Structures are given as C-alpha cells and as structure tokens.
C-alpha cells in the first residue's frame, strides 16, 4: 500500500499585514489620547442620569472638595489673563508682576485667597500641588478683603469673556459654560454657599458635573438596617 504523503506546511505566517493593522491602531490611539493632567482637587463625583455634554472650550469650573475647599478654573487663557487684570484693578492692593501674570495665564485651576495668588503664580505645577491650597473664600468673613472672592472671580471672568467676545478675540461663543463640580461627600452647606454666590452674581443657570449612572432602574446599594 502506498503511503499517502501529507505535505508539511510551515507554521510561520506572514505577519506583515498584522503589523500594519497593529500600528495603524496604535497611531490612532496615540493621536487621540489626551492624558489627563493630575487633578489639583480630586473629588468623588456624584452620579446621575443627566446627559448634558460639557463643551470643549469656554468652561468655568468651580470645584468643591469633600472638606469644603473651593477651587476656581477657566480653560481659556485669554479670558484668564483678562479676568486677572480686572481682579487686580478691583482689589488694588495686590499687584502682579508680568512674570506672575504669565504664570497665572498658564494655571488651569487654583484655590487660594487673592492675596496669596501672586506667590503661587510662578510655581511649577508640582509645587502648586504640594503646598496644599486652602481654597477660595466664598463669603466675605473668610476673606482678607471682606469680599466674596469667588463671586468676584465669577463676575470678572464673565465680564472678561464678554469683552473679549465683543472685541472678536475668542471667536464665536455663547458665554462661559459654568460648571459646578462638587464632591458627593461634601456637606450641602458649602455647596449652598457656592450656589448662593451664583445667584447673587445673576448666574441662575449652571451645570453640575456628574459621572454617568447605568441606565434603567439604577439600584446599586442595599439599605443598611
């Protein structure tokens, strides 16, 4: 009986096509990835089923941490610089050098009373994280200037944005998108102060940043009895 010869095939494959795909995907992910900068004030976001998208630009972010510190941030550098100019003119006693102003325009978020602001402007990001910022005074009793500093920041930023918009320097925008990012474990008292500041400054529409909750009937926890 003649033996049937099974032809031996090599197990080596041509990997070229696979490499192509792999690197194509790699390039895509590398280009689309935006590394999140380390957060100055990390908070545990409450969850909700709300679905308002946060725009990419012109956002004013007010953060309230679990221990009641308030941070303020603007994402537009031009608005930031202009708001600082307005604040300087308004508070008068605190002066900024040009270097400090440049430093400020590069600062995404901060949480110190106004009189300490020049000091942290020239710091590096790491130093700013380290010093432990104490939060912006939300009522006049905490402020050295006896003014609601958060309110001043909100007012001056909105004015700065409006001026720049009218001058045609920041393209089309519909005003600042005001976001409140509060820690779920923060006491309502602190949040209430911020909300009162909003309404005092005629900000009656704002947005609470939440993490997404699973759809349908969301029941995660069981009651503790």
């Amino acid at each position, binding site marked *: 009986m003649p033996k049937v010869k099974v032809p031996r095939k090599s197990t*080596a494959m*041509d*990997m*070229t096509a*696979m*490499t192509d795909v*792999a*690197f194509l*995907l*790699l390039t895509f*992910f*590398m280009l689309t*990835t935006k*590394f*999140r900068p380390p957060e100055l004030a990390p908070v545990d*976001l*409450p*969850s*909700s*089923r*709300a*679905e*308002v*998208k*946060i725009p990419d630009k012109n956002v004013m972010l007010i953060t*309230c941490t679990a221990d009641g510190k308030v941070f303020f941030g603007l994402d537009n550098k031009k608005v930031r610089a202009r708001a600082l100019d307005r604040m300087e003119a308004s508070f008068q006693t605190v002066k900024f050098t040009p270097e400090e102003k440049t430093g400020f325009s590069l600062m995404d978020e901060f949480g110190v009373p106004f009189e300490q602001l020049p000091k942290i402007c020239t710091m590096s990001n790491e130093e700013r994280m380290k010093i432990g910022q104490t939060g912006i005074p939300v009522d006049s009793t905490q402020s050295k200037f006896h003014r609601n500093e958060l309110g001043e920041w909100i007012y001056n930023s909105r004015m700065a944005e409006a001026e720049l918009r009218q001058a045609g320097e920041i393209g089309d925008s519909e005003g600042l998108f005001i*976001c*409140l990012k*509060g*820690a*779920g*474990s*923060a*006491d*309502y*008292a602190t*949040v*209430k102060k911020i*909300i009162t500041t*909003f*309404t*005092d400054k*005629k900000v*009656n*529409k*704002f*947005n*609470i*940043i*939440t*993490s*997404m*909750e699973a759809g349908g*009937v*969301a*029941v995660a*926890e*069981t*009651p*503790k009895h």
Partner: protein
Amino acid sequence: MAELDTSGGGKHKGAGGPKSKKMSTRVDMTPMVDLGFLLITFFMLTTTFNKPQAMSQNFPEKQDKKDEEAVVKASKVLQLIPWENNKIYYFFGTGNPSDGPSIIDSVDFSVTKNIRPILTKHLSQVKAKFGSEDDAIFLIKPKDKSKFKNYVDLMDELNIVGVKRLVPMEWTPNDSILVSNSLKGLMAAPPQ
C-alpha cells in the same frame, strides 16, 4: 557633468569572486506585532472615551422684595428635606401648624427607588385635583449637614419623573420642629 559609473564594480567582481550568501529579506515580525499590540492595549485602557456629563440647573432669579413672592395653593406642594445619614424627610402642604397637622415621613436615600413613588404619588394627586401634572410644586430644603450627593440624587430623580417646577429653598425653623417631632415618633400637631 558628472557621470554615474554603471559598470558594476569593475574587475573585482569577476566570475571567480567569493559568492555572497543570499539572505532572505523576510524578517520575523512576531516581536514587532507583540510590541504593537502591547502599546495598543495601553493606549486603549488609558483613553477616556466617556467625558463626565453635566446636569443643568435653573435657579429662580433672586428676589429682593418679599412681596414679590408668589403665593401657591398648599395642596400643590410637596416639601422635601434631605437630612443627615442619607435620610430624606418629606411632607405634603405647608407644614404650618395653623394649617392642621402634617404627616411627616422619611425614607432612606441609599436606595433611590424609595423616593420615586413619593414623587409620582404627588404628581398624580395634583393631576387628579388640578388637571395637570405641571401644577405640582416641589420645594427642596436640604439641611446643611446633608451631603451634596443626596442633593444630586434628588435632583436626578425629579428630572427623571419630569418635574417642571421645583424650588430650592432655605429651610425654616418650622421645618426643624416638624422633623424633630418626627424623630421623637410624634406626628406634628398644632401646638395647643
């Protein structure tokens, strides 16, 4: 003009020269693929596709004058008081002792499902009485010591059941009397 020498190396590469070994041009791509997919995995895992969402809030304009405050029918009102320890107290109507006893009750907040029947109950009661769910008014009076998470949860529930009119408010001494009576296991009754 310079000319390219195309003669091919001249006499050194004669017929008797050393034969260069023919190497395969194929390279083993496996390690490269490994590396490629490793990096893809890394970038896929670190990419955040889902941005955080926002919940929009519309607050009524601040009113300086007391007399501009709107007067509403008590039966349209449900008052909700987020309390400490994930509790929420609620009662229908004004809660004023002069308007008769209010029954104040509380539910645990950790199950958001608990609060929804109360909201829908109020909506259907108002609909039965006034013809439209839109007439229902919800007053939210979070206690200072309540957590922000509870506030957001409550707002979320109100959004889900489609509440049109809700008013965040300061809470009054009367509310605290109601709640403390409830804590003592009493119904809030008009003081004699």
